[in-house]
């Protein structure tokens, strides 16, 4: 095949290899040694997820039967349900426990085919109707009768089920932070803050750099793989990979990621011109842009050859999704659900990630460590939140549930950990129709190696209160996303010295409640 030959020819050129497979670097590096395969899936919820309606406080400081105490709590600065309800007003999720709706099949998987939690409700009604209250797990990962103090939104039964089966953790009140930060310090200007707080692109960027006060530098995963050195062999499909376009988090000074589409297509080769185009791209040019573009063309040719192998793999999973459908199918209204368009793209992106993982663990076993970047858009719910946010949370829940089942079937559940981040959380106060840009929110961590639980804090939502940046409920985080990253990366095999190199602000949190190991990963 022409493509194959070109690919091999291309692989033989050292300069081009550096461009194609940036894990191979000219400079001499120590190379980390790994014997197993582990992957992280970094899921960006674009636009700023309103996580305060995804994970709802269910604890009461007051006795619910004591009207006076309830009223006092609603007025006071407590962080129980009443405080939440009072601030959220028309956007508040009801404090109704729906956990009896979670039915499992004989395999122990969530089954929504027999008892569809949505029957008789529209999704916005369901969204506001209550939450699946979560109980703490015992040492063996079995649920106890003791409430965890949180509920998972009614449109996310898969997430609730994952928590109950010891595969999902919630990181509470987390976002970008430079150092531990209080309202008083902000008012006194005595604390360093993330650059351009509340702006989408810059908060996405500092989540990607892993350095809240530096939006200019490279992505943390890019820097990490520079530290790792050449660990994954030469096949381009062993690189870190984005299925959502350019991924700053994966981009380092001399490392970059593949950016693939969900249904990769190769070159039309009927005219047999690949040789010619490749030769033209390889010519010497004095123009730096041309030189750069030439290496891009070469990279495209190299990939074109391999992608077919990866994506022609159409494994059919034995496991069914929670609707009883084939695993990566997109549920429709016909499945007895509320009949809306699910987020096909997030399911498709997870399916593509699963394909690459499946391919590498079976055919490309020199690959040891990978990080994937995917995203889901639409979370900027300034308006129409009760109409839009339910769809987003439902789509996220379905997609995460499917991917975890896929990893379990592949026997890789303990080796693949998925985490969400978002630009920022949204204001605890409502603007009447939605919520505005804010700061802290809650993130999700999923995988067989994850220890269920709620790690972090339910904040005081009070407008203008002790944890509000200003007056609209832009909640100050109490956990830095650096701590979330470092905990996952410790499981990934990254030592403390490297963590300090990658996350220069991490040490600022060593003396906080959770430190650099928040404890949500099972000990290896």
């Amino acid at each position: 095949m022409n493509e194959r030959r070109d690919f091999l020819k291309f692989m033989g050129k050292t300069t081009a290899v550096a461009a194609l497979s940036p894990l191979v670097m000219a400079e001499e590096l120590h190379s980390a040694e790994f014997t197993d395969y582990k992957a992280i899936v970094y899921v960006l919820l674009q636009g700023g997820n309103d996580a305060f309606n995804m994970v709802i406080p269910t604890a009461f400081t007051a006795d619910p039967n004591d009207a006076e105490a309830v009223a006092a709590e609603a007025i006071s600065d407590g962080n129980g349900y009443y405080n939440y309800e009072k601030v959220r007003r028309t956007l508040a999720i009801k404090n109704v426990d729906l956990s009896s709706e979670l039915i499992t099949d004989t395999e122990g998987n969530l089954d929504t085919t027999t008892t569809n939690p949505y029957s008789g409700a529209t999704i916005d009604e369901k969204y506001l109707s209550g939450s699946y209250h979560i109980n703490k797990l015992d040492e063996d990962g079995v649920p106890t009768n003791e409430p965890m103090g949180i509920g998972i939104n009614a449109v996310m039964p898969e997430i609730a089920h994952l928590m109950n089966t010891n595969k999902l953790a919630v990181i509470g009140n987390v976002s970008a932070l430079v150092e531990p930060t209080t309202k008083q310090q902000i008012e006194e200007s005595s604390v360093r803050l993330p650059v351009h707080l509340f702006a989408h692109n810059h908060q996405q960027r500092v989540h990607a750099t892993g350095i809240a006060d530096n939006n200019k530098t490279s992505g943390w995963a890019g820097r990490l793989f520079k530290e790792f050195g050449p660990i994954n062999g030469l096949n381009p499909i062993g690189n870190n990979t984005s299925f959502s376009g350019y991924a700053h988090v994966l981009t380092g000074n001399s490392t970059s990621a593949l950016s693939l589409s969900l249904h990769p297509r190769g070159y039309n080769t009927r005219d047999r011109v690949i040789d010619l185009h490749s030769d033209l791209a390889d010519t010497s040019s004095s123009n730096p842009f041309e030189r750069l573009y030439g290496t891009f063309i070469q990279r495209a040719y190299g990939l074109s050859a391999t992608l077919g192998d990866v994506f022609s793999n159409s494994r059919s999973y034995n496991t069914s999704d929670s609707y009883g459908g084939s695993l990566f199918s997109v549920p429709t209204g016909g499945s007895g659900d509320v009949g809306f368009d699910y987020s096909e793209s997030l399911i498709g992106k997870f399916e593509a990630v699963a394909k690459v993982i499946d391919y590498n663990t079976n055919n490309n076993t020199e690959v040891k460590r990978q990080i994937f970047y995917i995203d889901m858009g639409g979370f900027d719910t300034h308006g129409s939140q009760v109409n839009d946010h339910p769809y987003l949370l439902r789509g996220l829940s379905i997609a995460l549930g499917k991917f975890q089942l896929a990893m379990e079937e592949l026997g890789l559940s303990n080796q693949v950990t998925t985490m969400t981040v978002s630009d920022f959380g949204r204001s605890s106060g409502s603007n009447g129709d939605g919520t505005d840009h804010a700061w802290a929110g809650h993130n999700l961590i999923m995988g067989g190696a994850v220890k269920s639980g709620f790690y972090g804090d339910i904040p005081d939502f009070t407008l203008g209160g002790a944890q509000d940046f200003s007056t609209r409920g832009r909640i100050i985080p109490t956990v830095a996303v650096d701590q979330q990253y470092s905990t996952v990366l410790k499981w990934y095999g990254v030592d403390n010295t490297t963590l300090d190199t990658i996350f220069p602000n991490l040490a600022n949190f060593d003396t906080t409640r959770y430190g650099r190991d928040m404890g949500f990963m099972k000990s290896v």
Partner: protein
Amino acid sequence: MKKVIRMSVISLTTGLLLTACGGGGSSSSTPPVEIVDDQNTTEEVDDQNTTYEVDDQNTTEEVEDQNTTDEVEDQNTTDEETDQNNTSYIPTDVSDNIARSFLEKSTFGPDAQSVSHIQDIGIEAWVNEQLNAPSAYDSNTDAHKTYLERAIYIYRYLKDDQNATSRDAYVAAHIDDNNSVNIASGDWKLRHAFSSTWFENALDAEDQLRQRMAYALSQILIISSSVDTFKRRGEAYSAFYDILAKDALGNYRDLLFNVTKSPAMGLYLTSRGNQKANPETGRHPDENYAREVMQLFSIGLEQLNLDGTPILNSDGNPIPTYNITDIEEMARIFTGWDATASQITWGTRPNQRYTFGKSDTWTASFTVPMKFTAEYHDFGSKTVLGYSIEGVGGDAELRSIIDVLVDYPSTAPFISKQLIQRLVTSNPTPAYVERVASVFRDNGSGVSGDMKAVLKAILLDEEVFREHADSEYFGKAKEPMMAYIQMLRAFNVENSPPWKESYITQGVNLDGLYVFPFENVSKTFGQGPLMAPSVFNFYQSDFIANDDEFFNNGIVTPELQIQTAQIMINYSNKIRTATYIHEKLKLEINTRPIHYQDRYIIDFEEEVALVQSLLAHDSNGDIDWDSLSEDEGKEAINALVDSLNNKLVFGNMNEEEVRYLKEYLFNADYGRNYSSMLKIIRIAVNAVATSKSYMIQR
């Protein structure tokens, strides 16, 4: 804590308006004048520095150090002289390559007609002619319709061309006098109608400079058809695009005003139906538009010098332009606006009366400006960026805040630099940015935001003409969609081929139309008109490709952010397909439904004529290759490659590229008839139009 910082106001020699209301009204061009509105009590005027309050920790001295008045004044004087007295760097003898290279920056690509015209009249005259060309917006002698008119015309056409009675009934029921389309969630054919209109203007319009500028603006003042609520509302984005195309050669002040009132923007950035605070319900104004109008459409996040570089504090960090209080105050200004109701009401729909904030996509009109309803507006006074805005409501209040934004010191460099990046070069020198930004601030007659003057400053700057460009980093990677369009224009793209009969029997007669299906465009190129994935465009202006040289030198490559391997493969395949769509083959194009395939026609007549002129051929055009000597064959191939190098790359292919291509074509054995000659041409065009030298604009 509030501290006072001092911003240097730079275009002092020609006067600067820093007013919270009015602005642009001074007719005085000399002598140096400083006009400061007395009403702005927060301002302090200190000789040549305007001071205002910014909530920041930076001291006056630090900023001043960065940016002394004297230096600036000197530079400005020099520029003035350059602008007015020395344009000798603009070539008067306009070669074919110079003409093409200039048209690459100022149009959707050189075609035979524009090249010969600019050679005839000269570059400066051509720019003036374009700036004053008739358009759909100011002349009814112009053949072009507005985007909205044309899109609706096409929509009717696509809807039902066969049955005039049913079409008229449909129009009466669904399209009102404002071309507002009253359908619950729009119609996918409206998207195609906008797309056809957009490509028609890009490919064929006479007012190319206006169209190119509108496209550049569409990447700054962004709405996007990528959101669900909006996907099928082609009439909404057509009306929005009309604002961009109209004000592209107007004033930035009007542009921002009209964009702010656009119902399409109101829908996209949720300012539509925004209401004043209600302490009882906890409601407060939606901050979405308030934020983006500052961050993206005017002042930007960081305070800038006139040359576009950030003003730094003592720690070497940029200084924010606004804080959260500015956003909250700004949000109050944009209360009380909502889309109007469509003229067509639905008897069976309960919600047919106009109710603020409640008009749904059935009943709202997305083609006429949003309407102000006093009841929902916050009439208190607001303090934004240190300016006090009186709560007078309506257009007057919008105008006053837009004046603040347009006159804010960072706006001129922030917008000017992005326009330079879209049209000319990714990494303009600070001096180039400063020359353009100065004109943005003052067109020479005391008017700021004059887009004609800004465009002229961008295109006729010394840096545009290569012998004056002193950096190897001058230029930019082409957007993939732009590269495609330039290729089509180079080969005489046309619509209205006699499509096969079967189309017409499907009820869709495409005669006279371009078809570029929406999803096709965005999936192929990772971009498309009004198809950005978010308000942050397809790519960010500060994106740097992952490459040591670019990274270490801080050379930005915005357009490369979307040039993934897959997009490059798609582009290559698209060009290959295009080379099959030429005159000889037009009747063979398949008959798949219109949303699958681009429809246009190009020709290689010039290339065919060139090859035939050099080689003996029979009456069928078939060349008897066997009887050709090696030299004769080589001569024809050489001439073909050289002509394509000139036509597409303006003579800039590197020596090796030219040699490899010639060798390849000469050694290829494609047969010996007319088709084989076309095949050689096709392969040559394909190779050149996907080459790295073509994909870079110099």
